[in-house]
């Protein structure tokens, strides 16, 4: 099992992701540089958090046009699992691999803290180790995580069940209080129709050890490992 972690200039969660893959998936992890055209035969790709290209123009906009993203898009179209975390989610939206966009937090403040997430889908390559309705504790750290899409797109996202995670209270209630950034419908993470491309603002790779304050992110890496082992 070989997992690629893409590094853009300005990525800063790539090592956390690399380490989570190595230790929690017991897989070979490789870095994929943004200028490369070769995915090195990986079985899944992570787009890590950070500030690719300094967030110039818009968060994720320039990274979405980088050479490696052409390969990631082709891999995704063939059904390969791709997960974008934080900046990675922004990049996936900018690359139009996921619907909608991530806008400036309503508060205009950078939010860095633990949040609660309700698992909405437990049938995905990334979430099969969770149970729908389960509440996770995972950190966020972003200034532009307010998920936005027009009403027609939101209706489709909801209708097709594309929401993977929602910001919730510790008991799983979805309300404005639990929403750290103003995201539409408390959306913290979504998938594409096929379910092989996941984007999420929270950082599961920062919740894989009790020392980090939570181990609730482990499930994501282990779900993917189990999925790939079955494939």
């Amino acid at each position: 099992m070989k997992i690629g972690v893409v590094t853009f200039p300005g990525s800063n969660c790539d090592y956390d992701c690399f380490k989570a893959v190595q230790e929690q998936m017991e897989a070979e992890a490789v870095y994929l540089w943004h200028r490369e055209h070769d995915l090195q035969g990986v079985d899944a790709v992570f787009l890590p958090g950070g500030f690719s290209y300094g967030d110039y123009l818009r968060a994720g906009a320039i990274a979405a046009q980088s050479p490696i993203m052409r390969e990631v898009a082709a891999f995704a179209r063939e059904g390969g699992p791709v997960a974008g975390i934080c900046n990675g989610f922004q990049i996936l939206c900018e690359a139009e691999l996921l619907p909608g966009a991530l806008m400036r937090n309503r508060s205009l403040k950078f939010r860095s803290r633990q949040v609660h997430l309700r698992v909405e889908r437990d049938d995905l390559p990334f979430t099969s180790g969770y149970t729908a309705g389960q509440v996770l504790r995972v950190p966020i750290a972003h200034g532009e995580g307010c998920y936005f899409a027009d009403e027609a797109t939101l209706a489709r996202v909801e209708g097709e069940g594309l929401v993977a995670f929602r910001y919730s209270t510790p008991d799983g209630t979805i309300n404005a209080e639990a929403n750290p950034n103003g995201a539409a419908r408390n959306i913290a993470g979504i998938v594409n129709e096929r379910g092989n491309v996941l984007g999420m603002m929270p950082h599961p790779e920062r919740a894989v050890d009790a020392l980090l304050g939570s181990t609730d992110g482990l499930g994501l890496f282990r779900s993917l490992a189990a999925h790939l082992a079955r494939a």
Partner: protein
Amino acid sequence: MTEYRIEVRVTPRRGILDPQGNAVAGALGTLGFRGVREVHVGRLIVFHMDAESEGEAKERGEAMCRQLLANPVTEDFSVQVAAAPGSAR
């Protein structure tokens, strides 16, 4: 070929909440500027480009907006084209 100066204006799509614009509006009010409404913060992107005609320059500028300079989900754009200062016409 003529050298054109292109100005691309990117603004938050009308009707979408613009927290940045609201914050600026609030600050202007605090400073005592009265009657300020509808504040929006966008981007101005300026560049020079060679093209056969003004129409071609505008078309290419708009293609750039659709592919990179603006996000079609959240932003509107407009492209203004003028002959670059000193360019042969």
